[in-house]
């Protein structure tokens, strides 16, 4: 035991290898391997006659996605939903986080109040909105709408992911010292100028960090759509339908590449702002 310990102590590279081997085996084999299989199978096809997967390279799936209007519309609709949800969350979260970090005397209590619902089940929250939005339910009798549909989907997704936007913004603003805001005021800046020159540079990476969550979570969602979306179809539904009923795994894999591509573009685009360190 001791001799092994001192041997390892003298060979840090060996310690490193020991630390990394198991986790990397898991993440590279179980996860990257799975993603690679997914990517490869997107280029396979299904024999329309026997229903068996033909393991030969073909661009047929991608051609279908690009040329058929249904899939183009579904992709654009999903992108639109993800963008709307992100914007709505940011608009609500920025003033809330600012109040929590810079105005309120009850910071910790408010953080807990925002944090607690995050632990309540995702499905339960979507279900609560199913009751709220039901025909003749509370929302219907008070506001006369909006009922199930794409509007309800955007509303419920914004509700679900709002804390994921508030918390990074709060954390960012919390790190901004009050003395900087005071210094800016002492130097004669009005509230608007202070916001632009002092608060905004901190705010932007935090909002982008939050948007990675709201964007990615919205893009992949197909459960909320089923619960409150009525007949709305998003990318997730198409993937799900192709795995289940249609039993066309290659096509499901191909269409799943759409959100991955969007997310990778998004991650690369926001990386330079330092948003990834705020996660």
């Amino acid at each position, binding site marked *: 035991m001791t001799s092994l310990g001192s041997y390892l102590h003298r060979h840090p590279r060996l310690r490193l290898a020991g630390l990394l081997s198991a*986790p990397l085996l898991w*993440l590279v084999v179980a996860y990257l391997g799975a993603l690679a299989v997914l990517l490869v199978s997107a280029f396979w096809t299904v024999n329309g006659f026997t229903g068996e997967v033909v393991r030969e390279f073909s661009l047929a799936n991608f051609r279908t996605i690009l040329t058929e209007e249904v899939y183009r519309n579904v992709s654009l609709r999903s992108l639109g939903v993800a963008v709307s949800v992100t914007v709505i969350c940011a608009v609500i979260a920025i003033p809330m986080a600012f109040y929590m970090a810079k105005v309120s005397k009850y910071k910790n209590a408010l953080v807990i109040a925002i944090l607690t619902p995050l632990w309540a089940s995702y*499905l339960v929250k979507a279900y609560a909105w199913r*009751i*709220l939005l039901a025909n003749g339910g509370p929302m219907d009798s008070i506001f006369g709408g909006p009922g199930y549909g794409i509007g309800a989907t955007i509303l419920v997704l914004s509700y679900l992911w709002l804390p994921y936007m508030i918390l990074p913004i709060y954390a960012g603003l919390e790190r901004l010292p009050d003395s900087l805001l*005071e210094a800016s005021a002492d130097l004669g800046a009005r509230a608007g100028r202070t916001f632009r020159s002092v608060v905004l540079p901190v705010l932007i990476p935090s909002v982008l960090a939050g948007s990675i969550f709201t964007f990615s979570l919205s893009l992949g969602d197909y459960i909320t759509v089923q619960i409150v979306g009525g007949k709305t179809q998003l990318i997730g539904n198409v993937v799900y339908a192709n795995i289940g009923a249609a039993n066309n795994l290659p096509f499901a894999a191909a269409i799943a590449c759409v959100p991955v591509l969007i997310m990778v573009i998004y991650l690369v685009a926001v990386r330079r702002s330092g948003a990834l360190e705020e996660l």
Partner: protein
Amino acid sequence: MTLSASARWALRAVMAAGLVFIYVPLLLVLVNSFNGDRTFAWPPRDLTTRWWSAAWENEGARQALLTSVQAGLAATAIALVLGTMIAFAVQRFEFFGRDTVSLLVVLPIALPGIVTGIALDSAWRSVMGDLGIGKGLFSVVVGHATFCVVTVYNNVLARLRRTGVNLEEASADLGASGFQTFRYVTFPLIRSALLAGGLLAFALSFDEIIVTTFTAGPGVTTLPIWIFNNLFRPNQAPIVNVVAAVLIVLSVVPVWLAQRIAGPSSGVLRGSTDA
């Protein structure tokens, strides 16, 4: 920044409205679980606890709860081991590809759940299927552990950054073996980070439905899957209401525990504010 009184009031109003928006749906579920009327007419006219006893007797819900706890514990255990190992490697060593490793850990949670789900599903079918290992609880645990690693990793990494290596070096200088140093110095230092990360990992696993849908074998029903299967069955609605209410009440527990363990900001979005 000196805010005018009206700006303060406006912010206060947005905060209050935001909290109402967040809490009203949850309260509705709680009240509805006592709604005596089968159609859940609103506002509820007679209140009853009979759905609560009916839910307690429900075999499907109980079995699903058990499955969820098993999957959550197993995934958390794996995530604790793997996440801690990567955190130590990344924080205590310089090596080629270090940034790639941290990106790799974040990836399962950054990509949409459905992608992780179908990737694991197709890999399982084409690789593990050929080896004769079908999907079951094990494949669910593999899927959950993959995206749970990041919560432990982030918490432990933040803690290691903050504590540094001085205490460990002192321990070694005083003649402690590597094992003793870990047992008496390093482990106590990271214990609360492990708890916070593990708690978060368990909660993530317990609540997960998308990856679970794609990785669960036939007959494996976790609680979220059970809820989803019964969501569209009107005669199961009273029981679903109670299960939903219980989950809302239970969500207070991890927050309370995290508060006790490491103070208010621990575990906030994977411990990022712990740094």
